């Protein structure tokens, strides 16, 4: 039985909305195990979101419409991105509306508004967080584009579905360019999602926090939406990496059997990916913020080397 492309699209939205907290929970469980603590369980993020939705919103007196609008924008744009990155099938109608460059821009919009909202209230922490986030973003974004462009070069397209189709059916060739691009992508993804060498997602330690500082003033359903969007962003960046670098097993059409198989393969890939990320996070200490330009610079260098290697060696 074949599913209609729109049904696949819908399925993908539901999957991502429903499973992103579970994925975030899985990462937390792994991290706890790795550090010898006992974990709260995979379901904890769902409970957190429900608790936050039940609470009242506390707004600062001088909060403008920007502050109230940002959580909805963040959540909405992240959901749109969820419809663009092929998770289980390449037959996505929405995917034709945006290529990789637009995708990076969508993430950029979210970051822009979050930074504005961080400064809106006028507290010191919000401004500090926004300024740091934008510093990191200005260095991370070109590197992210470079890494993705290398894959685009290998598949002759910037459209994600096209990239996935080409990469999934390419014969096995050792490609140094893609290895470099993957290394750069992992480094950038750690920075984009605020994981350990760049930012620590688990603390609210005043002087080191970056992302948490921007959203410090949020509460109630606003915070729930932002947290949920954050979990989706984490899952989506993993999905983007999987789609660009190892899309094997993704379904080409809407056949239910192959969709189920693709879902199983995706789950395994996500679990392994999370394990790798947790290993990196546990193995490294958080970097001093003034070392970050060097870290992101080397990511950019790796991505550029990948691109150069594509021209020179392939």
């Amino acid at each position, binding site marked *: 039985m074949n599913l209609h492309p729109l049904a696949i699209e819908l399925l993908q939205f539901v999957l991502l909305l429903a499973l992103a907290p579970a994925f975030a929970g899985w990462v937390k469980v792994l991290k706890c195990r790795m550090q010898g603590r006992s974990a709260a369980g995979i379901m904890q993020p769902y409970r957190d979101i429900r608790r936050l939705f039940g609470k009242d919103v506390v707004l600062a007196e001088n909060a403008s419409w920007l502050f109230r609008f940002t959580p909805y924008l963040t959540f909405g744009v992240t959901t749109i991105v969820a419809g663009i990155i092929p998770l289980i099938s390449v037959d996505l109608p929405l995917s034709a509306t945006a290529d990789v460059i637009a995708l990076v821009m969508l993430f950029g919009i979210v970051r822009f508004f979050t930074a504005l909202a961080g400064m809106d209230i006028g507290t010191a922490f919000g401004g500090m967080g926004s300024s740091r986030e934008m510093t990191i973003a200005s260095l991370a974004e070109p590197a992210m584009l470079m890494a993705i462009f290398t894959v685009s070069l290998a598949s002759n397209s910037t459209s994600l579905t096209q990239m996935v189709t080409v990469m999934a059916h390419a014969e096995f060739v050792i490609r140094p360019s893609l290895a470099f691009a993957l290394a750069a992508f992992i480094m950038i993804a750690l920075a984009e999602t605020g994981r350990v060498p760049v930012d620590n997602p688990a603390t609210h330690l005043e002087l080191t926090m970056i992302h948490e500082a921007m959203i410090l003033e949020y509460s109630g359903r606003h915070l729930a939406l932002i947290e949920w969007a954050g979990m989706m962003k984490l899952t989506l960046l993993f999905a983007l990496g999987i789609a660009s670098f190892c899309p094997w097993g993704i379904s080409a059409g809407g056949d239910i059997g192959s969709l189920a198989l693709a879902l199983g393969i995706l789950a395994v890939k996500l679990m392994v990916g999370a394990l790798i990320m947790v290993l990196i996070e546990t193995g490294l200490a958080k970097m001093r913020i003034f070392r970050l330009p060097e870290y992101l610079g080397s990511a950019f260098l790796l991505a550029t*080397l990948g691109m*150069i290697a594509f021209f020179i*060696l392939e």
Partner: protein
Amino acid sequence: MAHTLAAQINSLLAALILLSAFALLAQRKIMGLVHIFAWQGFFLALSTAVIGFASGEHHLYISSLLTLGMKVFLLPYILYSLVHKLKIHRDIEAVVNIPTTMLLGIVLVVFSYHLTAPIRELSNLMTRSTLAVALATVMLGLLMMVTRRHAVTQILGFLAMENGLFFAATSATYGMPMVVELGVALDLLIAAFIFGIFFFHINTTFDSLDVDQMAKLKETD
């Protein structure tokens, strides 16, 4: 395009050699530099052996073994013991702006790609595309010699340049004649000893291996 497995492995190794050349530019710690240099030699030896296997030029096995012995074990060991004797193994060099050096490095890679483009057209060896990487490694070694201030790191830059030249020879013409290669290897060994003696002298005279000190004419400031 010869997309045989050997050519693919060779281009992977070429990419790793290029990466290690950039890692040399980025590394601050002297012991870290020695380790990266040893890795570069290892990739070089491996690549020489792969080219030797694929092209049927069996004298390349000998130069591969020579490279392995010299550049992976002997030279790093000499540098290692020197660094320990001179008690500079904890030194972290103050390098001017690593990101800028990196960007310069990328420009050099693109430049060498353009420079070797005509040779790519002429040659029909399977290694012709790695020639650009070889030239880039030479350039990056030169860049390292120019931008670093510590005598030991300058020598490492020089040795990295030699790695690049060796790689250029294997990728352009499947290696130099055996006599030349033996001669170069011997020269390098002797050069390493002379460097060692010089380091000692510089260190005892100036109390430091920072070559900026040598520009001073007076003993006191």
